[in-house]
């Protein structure tokens, strides 16, 4: 680590918001502008890359080749598609609520860009001789900021669905609003454990706190819950219910075309990067080098951390793609039940355990000798609880009768009902022979007569 105190940026930016009311343009302002433009550029390029990445990886999983024509290995395919999309006719349905129809894609795309601002991409580096962290703003409540901003992104989807004035988008909007609210709760709860351990809500602080161990293995359950919730939050398979193409055609963006559609597409892929970046920051050490590399002393200084961060990010994106290539889509009510009945209770319980542990440790009652048996005990109880819940859930599924279909009445519509086959006898009653034509007998087949065959 270079001898760079965090305070340098803090002194100059006591408050990022109020600071912007200063009248002179200080050097850090220029740096912020550079970083902002860089973050924007990285996001856009990453989007183009990720679309290609997804298509190629999924192709590989499906024994296909995927895009390989435009540019080396097809890398420019997404760019070409984007240009093509922009040149398409922009269709606005007659029934649409025009201003809202127009605002919705913007409301979806802009928060997606904003959320990346607090993610630390690396430690302090030197740009034009000035030391600065690779992070746009270091908010003391940065994680809260990400949650808040991503919750605004929901508006894009809900309003797009409503303002299209069409049924499929409306259903998509309905699904996505319920889905995102539910999963944001689980997401927030999974972060609470990290806050308790790190003692801060600032992303850079959390990365610093992971110096001696990533939260991925210190808070495994939080990490798992977050990873599930983040897939739900980004509307990606297997939780892509708002845009389930088999059911709702395109969901909320069914009626969108041209650049407006492109904005939704952009927002989806940027959100993918954002939640992955957040996962890396919160649970996987942020820009810190993974274990074998971190033994090298220079691994966590200079520009290298950005590389580690990108690698971790792309691994997460790969996981997203992997999920999409593997899993079928959940049903809406199953998905909500999973969120409310499994994820949220489990994370609340887990939070209790974490809090207990922290308190014991803070109070000093917990030395290493006690910690291990207590930890194992708590883990066992917790596991039992989870298993019991799961078993109960499964039993309930088994016990619940199939969905009610209207009672069948044999003569309800005045239709005569044929004798019921398969009820007592395994085979249906059948005619003694099947030759019924007046003109010719049935072609006898190789010694097996019809009678023989039918008595079998």
């Amino acid at each position: 680590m270079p001898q760079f105190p965090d305070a340098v940026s803090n002194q100059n930016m006591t408050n990022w918001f109020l600071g912007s009311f200063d009248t002179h343009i200080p050097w850090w302002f220029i740096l912020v502008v550079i970083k902002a433009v860089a973050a924007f550029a990285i996001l856009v390029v990453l989007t183009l890359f990720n679309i290609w990445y997804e298509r190629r990886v999924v192709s590989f999983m499906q024994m296909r080749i995927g895009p390989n024509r435009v540019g080396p290995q097809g890398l420019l395919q997404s760019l070409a598609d984007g240009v093509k999309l922009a040149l398409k006719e922009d269709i606005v349905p007659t029934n649409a609520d025009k201003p809202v129809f127009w605002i919705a894609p913007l409301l979806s795309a802009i928060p997606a860009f904003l959320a990346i601002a607090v993610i630390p991409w690396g430690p302090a580096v030197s740009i034009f001789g000035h030391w600065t962290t690779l992070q746009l703003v270091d908010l003391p409540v940065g994680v809260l900021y990400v949650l808040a901003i991503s919750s605004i992104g929901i508006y894009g989807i809900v309003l797009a669905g409503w303002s299209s004035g069409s049924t499929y988008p409306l259903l998509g909007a309905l699904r996505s609003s319920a889905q995102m609210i539910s999963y944001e709760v689980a997401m927030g709860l999974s972060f609470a454990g990290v806050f308790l351990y790190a003692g801060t809500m600032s992303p850079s602080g959390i990365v610093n706190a992971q110096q001696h161990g990533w939260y991925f293995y210190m808070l495994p359950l939080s990490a798992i819950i977050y990873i599930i919730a983040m897939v739900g939050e980004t509307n990606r398979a297997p939780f892509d219910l708002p845009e389930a193409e088999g059911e709702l055609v395109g969901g909320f963006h069914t009626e969108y075309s041209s650049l407006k559609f492109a904005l939704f597409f952009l927002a989806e892929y940027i959100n993918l990067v954002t939640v992955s970046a957040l996962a890396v920051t919160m649970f996987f050490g942020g820009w810190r080098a993974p274990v074998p590399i971190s033994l090298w002393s220079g691994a966590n200084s200079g520009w290298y951390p950005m590389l580690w961060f990108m690698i971790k990010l792309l691994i997460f994106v790969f996981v997203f793609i992997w999920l999409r290539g593997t899993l079928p889509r959940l049903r809406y009510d199953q998905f909500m039940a999973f969120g409310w009945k499994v994820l949220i209770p489990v994370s609340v319980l887990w939070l209790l355990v974490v809090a207990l542990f922290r308190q014991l440790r803070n109070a000093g009652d917990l030395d290493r000798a006690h910690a291990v048996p207590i930890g194992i005990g708590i883990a066992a109880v917790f596991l039992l609880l989870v298993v019991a819940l799961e078993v109960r859930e499964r039993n309930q599924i088994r016990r619940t009768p199939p969905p009610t279909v209207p009672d069948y009445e044999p003569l309800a519509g005045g239709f005569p009902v044929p004798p019921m086959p398969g009820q007592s006898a395994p085979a249906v009653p059948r005619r003694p022979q099947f030759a019924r034509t007046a003109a010719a007998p049935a072609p006898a087949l190789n010694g097996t007569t019809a009678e023989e065959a039918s008595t079998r």
Partner: protein
Amino acid sequence: MGQLVERTAGVGAGLATEDMILNIGPQHPSTHGVLRLRLVLDGERIVSAEPIVGYMHRGAEKLFEVRDYRQIIMLANRHDWLSAFCNELGVVLAAERMLGMELPVRASWARTMLAELNRVLNHLMFLGSYPLELGAITPIFYAFREREDLQKVMEEISGGRMHFMFNRVGGLKDDLPAGWLDRARRTIHAVRGRLADIENLIHGNEIFRARTEGVGVLTTEQIAAYGLSGPIARAGGVDFDLRRDEPYLAYGELGDVLRVVTRKAGDCFSRFDCLLEQTRVSLDLAEACADRLAALPQGPINLRLPKVLKVPEGETYAWTENPLGINGYYLVSRGEKTPWRLKLRSASFNNIQVLGELLPGHLVADMVAILGSMFFVVGDIDK
């Protein structure tokens, strides 16, 4: 579902939750073409459903009446484009029966084999597309790899990949090419081996199970009342298979290989399971036919026909166990070279009628699962 209306009393009557009418199709990804379903929804729950058919009506039955028997085969193989060979079969069986033809032994076995290969092709389509409808995008490519190999086999013998046109009244168009049987057997082996890939990919998947088990349950009574047939009926516990119960072609001699696959539950999962297992059985049957064909002595594979093929006066009903269910042709002839009437009983038409009773009470997402599991071909519905 009226209780919601009174519960959301608030600003005014116009804000109560209304039932929403949702038209699924005629252009919708889950209807495989142009089936249309008119759903009345309360939230996402289906209150009532009405299948509206006929968008692809091509008047096949009327066209049959102005075509001679050679041309009818071509027309008949098109209504269900996933089981072209089996469709042809019904027509030629009816005509042969009316003509009193004795089919050459080799033709009968070859037809059986091709029909079973066609069944595998058809079922593979389902095994790929059904998970796709539930959001799993990968299995279809595995299914299509198998289809591709089998289509190569079929293409080699008939020249067609979908519409084989290989049946003739009195046999098959040509004899089997030299070495074809071995190549077909190798392909069957390969496909059977790789079928496990598809199964591992989706069959045990928790989400897939959750989406399909207990969803869209068909009772035996419903199956009987609506005249459902084929794998859909067998998945609901109706043990009925024409190949066993009224054997045609060489099925009568394949009794030890032919297992009729049935399931009890009648839900979407059992339909999938049934079709998956039936694919294996069909592969076994095709292999048994290949073995038998190799053992048979040389002989003709078709009969010489007169230039003008006139079917004697009379009527007959030829039904076959098509991949989708019972496919029947009621042939009435007045001794002309064209049929006086050729009524087509297609499996899908009957199978989807039950949707109006099956869908209410389910969610929109279940609708997709059920629709997919009913395994219909729109051409087979609309004819």
